[in-house]
């Protein structure tokens, strides 16, 4: 292969656990860097995708307007978009709030909840607006691959990326398939 694969990553409404699990590849990261190069990612602190990126890994679902904006930008720039982890795939634990009206959530978190000091709902124009429900990313953009798990193990990332780099159709052997 002449050119290295470019990989962008982002975390939307997730806990960064998927990114931490990615780093659990440990010394295999060095090997990965011989075939791939990070583009936009919290790991490089690059804020926007290059014009064309080969693979975009998206952790987390959509809980606010900025998540939707970031996801659309990712989709525009990434040739292959991958939903990584339970939250990106089905909303995950943040979606536990989906049957609670938004106003009630804010009230509990910022006004009436136990231990709240200086009650007041944050309303700075810089803060992205919350969506009324948390949504998985396939409800907004076309997703090419899904890596389930909470988080997917480092082996899953490794298998997926090395499959793609070698030109194979990525597939997860059943012991690597987990929803938890």
């Amino acid at each position, binding site marked *: 292969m002449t050119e290295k694969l470019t990989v962008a990553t982002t975390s939307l409404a997730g806990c960064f656990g998927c990114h931490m699990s990615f780093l659990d590849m440990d010394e295999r990261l060095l090997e990965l860097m011989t075939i791939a190069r990070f583009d936009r990612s919290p790991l490089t602190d690059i804020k926007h995708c290059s014009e064309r990126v080969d693979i975009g890994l998206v952790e987390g679902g959509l809980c606010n307007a900025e998540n939707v904006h970031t996801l659309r930008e990712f989709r525009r720039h990434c040739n292959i978009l991958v*939903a990584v982890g*339970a939250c990106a*795939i*089905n*909303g*995950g*634990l943040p*979606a*536990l709030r*989906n*049957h609670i009206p938004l106003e009630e959530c804010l009230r509990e978190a910022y006004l009436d909840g136990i231990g709240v000091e200086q009650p007041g709902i944050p309303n700075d124009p810089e803060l992205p607006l919350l969506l009324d*429900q948390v*949504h*998985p990313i*396939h*409800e907004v953009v076309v*997703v090419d*691959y*899904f*890596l*389930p798990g*909470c988080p997917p193990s480092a082996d899953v990332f490794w298998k997926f990326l090395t499959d793609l780099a070698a030109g194979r159709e990525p597939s*997860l052997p*059943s012991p690597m*398939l*987990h*929803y*938890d």
Partner: protein
Amino acid sequence: MSHPTFNLDGQDIPFSEGQTLMEAATAAGVYIPHLCHNPEFTPHGSCKLCTVKVNGRNCSACTFPASAGQQVLSNTRELNDTRRALTQMLFVEGNHLCPGCEKSGDCLLQATGYHLGMLNSRFPHFFPHRAVDASHPDILLDRDRCIFCELCVRASRDMDGKNVFGIAGRGIHNQLVVNSPTGLLKDSELTVTDKAAQVCPVGAILIKRHGFETPIGQRTFDRQDIGTEALAREQTAEGLTHD
């Protein structure tokens, strides 16, 4: 003793008079995916996971009687694609957040997803609002995870003789209801030793304070495929092995 046979995916399967395709296949060591079927109960035929093609027509293997010479297809790409879609529908019509579920790793719905290589939920999620009933001292009812297999309904009615559970409403408005003056589990006759409290294939009816006795990662379907596990479990159920 020789038995008549039918053909399942190219293999001759012996059966006894009155057996369903599912019973004969299980006895012969062939797994057909299923969720609402449990050999201890009268077949219900509602989830359609066990759909097979019998002489070219779709039939539920758990209810369809075996007869000599049938040509049955089960483990085909088309049927497994349909089964995966049905499983995905079950996921999106409830609230299945496996990472936060006590049943994870021992759940038949999740294990069926694994078996069928289900990687996503494919459809938009309904995120329905279904009430949790934590009123009973020993048993938790989390309706978010109910797949309406009616195993608890059948167990309570046919084995425990109590009729604690029922399904009310239609379609997406289905709800598992509890037969008690308040509608709460604590005021029903359900006890922890009832079959109905033990039989739920998913994490909807859970015995309290036992959820994490086995750590996540070391549970039944963390270790093996549901096909192997279901055959082992169900072949020992009465009346399923050939003489």
